[in-house]
């Protein structure tokens, strides 16, 4: 089974929920963890990963380059770039390689053939390790300024699937990035179940509604976990939305200093502070996940 953990909004507790679920389920189930937040990968930090067994460089991203000796300074490329990435600087047209999407329009419209070329660049790296807890973890790191690509996440998942087959693992738990764009779509796509993490704030509710629409595109069953549940007692928006859409709430985690403190210890909160309020709630959630989701 493939479970994706997403939220739309950043910083609401995706990695806290993922790392704790993985930790709590790892002994009874054969699990592989995938950190699909290539912009800001954090699961390795929560599992205290120090070394990687295998790394693959990902090329495939392309950026345009202009040969200044051949360029006739007509400016057509700058005019036609859909993303305004080409500018005239000190008399030369220059492509900004940290905003270029690599579409190649500039090369096509350039009247002097061979002046603008698309060059393959490294977009990032994907990595694999076996954590000290025994389960494998796949992670990725996008190089700064590179186009964010669902391909990176798809590569991670494909790698995870191969390992699952080889090691006869049962479940893949995917910790997605914030947002609703390509990385998240690649994380949600192909999952069997989505666990959506939210906190009781209007901003998180707004983003929850957006990520739920993405999950609906894929017709996946969704569940909600409310984090920092006691942050804003008067706010019932998440419950109302869950009820209206018929999304089961898996559990509610209270605000607990044990969570940031566990991050500093670089451990899942359920390991670092097993008796904390947050850990108790997370253990209940893990139990429900086992009974409601994994057994189906």
């Amino acid at each position, binding site marked *: 089974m493939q479970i994706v953990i997403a939220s739309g909004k950043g910083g609401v507790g995706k990695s806290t929920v993922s790392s704790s679920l993985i930790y709590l389920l790892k002994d009874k189930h054969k699990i592989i963890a995938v950190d699909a937040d290539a912009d*800001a990968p954090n699961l390795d930090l929560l599992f205290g990963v120090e070394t990687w067994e295998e790394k693959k460089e990902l090329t495939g991203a392309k950026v345009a380059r202009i040969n200044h000796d051949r360029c006739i300074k007509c400016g057509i490329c700058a005019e036609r770039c859909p993303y305004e990435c080409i500018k005239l600087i000190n008399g030369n047209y220059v492509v*900004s390689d940290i905003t270029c999407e690599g579409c190649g329009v500039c090369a096509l419209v350039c009247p002097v053939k061979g002046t603008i070329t698309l060059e393959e660049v490294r977009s990032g790296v994907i990595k694999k390790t076996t954590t000290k807890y025994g389960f494998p973890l796949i992670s990725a790191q996008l190089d700064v300024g590179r186009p*964010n690509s669902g391909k990176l996440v798809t590569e991670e998942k494909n790698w995870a699937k191969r390992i699952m087959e080889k090691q006869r693992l049962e479940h893949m738990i995917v910790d997605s990035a914030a*947002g609703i764009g390509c990385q998240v779509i690649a994380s949600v796509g192909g999952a069997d179940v989505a666990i959506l993490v939210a906190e009781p704030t209007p901003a998180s509710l707004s*983003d929850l509604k957006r990520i739920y629409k993405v999950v609906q595109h894929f017709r996946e069953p969704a569940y909600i976990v409310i984090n920092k549940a006691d942050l804003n007692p008067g706010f019932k928006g998440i419950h109302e939305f869950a009820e209206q859409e018929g999304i089961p709430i898996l559990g509610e985690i209270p605000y607990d200093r044990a969570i940031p403190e566990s991050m500093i210890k670089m451990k899942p909160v359920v390991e670092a502070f097993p008796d904390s309020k947050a850990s108790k709630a997370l253990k209940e959630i893990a139990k429900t996940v086992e009974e409601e989701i994994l057994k189906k």
Partner: protein
Amino acid sequence: MHMHKIFKVLGKPNNRGEEMQIAVSGGKGGTGKSTIAINLAIALKEHFDLVLADLDVEAPNDHLLLGVELQNESPVNSFIPHFDYSKCIRCKKCAEVCEENAIITMRDGTPFLMPTLCSGCRACEIVCPVHGAILEGQKLMGYTYETQTPYEFPLVTGKLLEGEERAMPIVVAAKRRAKKLNKELLVVDTAAGTSNTVSKALEDSQLIIAVTEPTPLGLHDLGLILELAKIMDIEAWIIINRSDLGPKEPIKELAEKYSAKIVGEIPYSERIIKSYVEGKPIILTGCEESEIFRGLAKKVIKYLR
């Protein structure tokens, strides 16, 4: 990686009447970017004619924090090719040139579009040798908004349509709409991460304010945004939010490595959370936390003037 350094022609912000721009970013999600951005914008409004641009197009929330509803919706449409099969000569050039592999061809060369993959770049249209074989089609990608706030500055927001993958066209459209207002100062709030959509939002800034929190996760992602700021040759300042959460030493070391100034620390505060959930900016309350934002605004004003 050195090319774009020349993008920044001026080392210092200008005072020649050209538009100034600052950006609030941070790498990690949920560190408090939007809280800083809206409060800073309110504080700076007394000194600059400004516009705030929410370029976190996948999860835009500044309007909620400002307690306003989005207004003046404008669709962002992207080009998609419509094939006129009576004119198409099945040369497959459109499919070959498509970097996104959004056009597949049948064995006889008949092209088909997979619309979700199409980036709207028009490479296929440009390369098609037959006039009229590729017609103008449109796909809705998202919206931009221009909202009047009660704080005497407009908010421009970009919002990616759910299910669409590409944030870049929305970031470009929203930033363009904000710039069109010709304000003296553009304050940009970016998405989490350090991908090229974040660089697009940061582009042309004279200052990046990176919001972080003192955890290994916050530190790691701060490192990435400082690296991006260095590549773009933009001055970076750091704000440590929830500063009592953990040790600050590692952030100080990182700041030193990148010659980035730590300009403020905001302790965990129930009042800030309350203001956040109620859509009432903390800076208007006059409580001690609001002084932190005023202090930050003063530093920004000094830097820009």
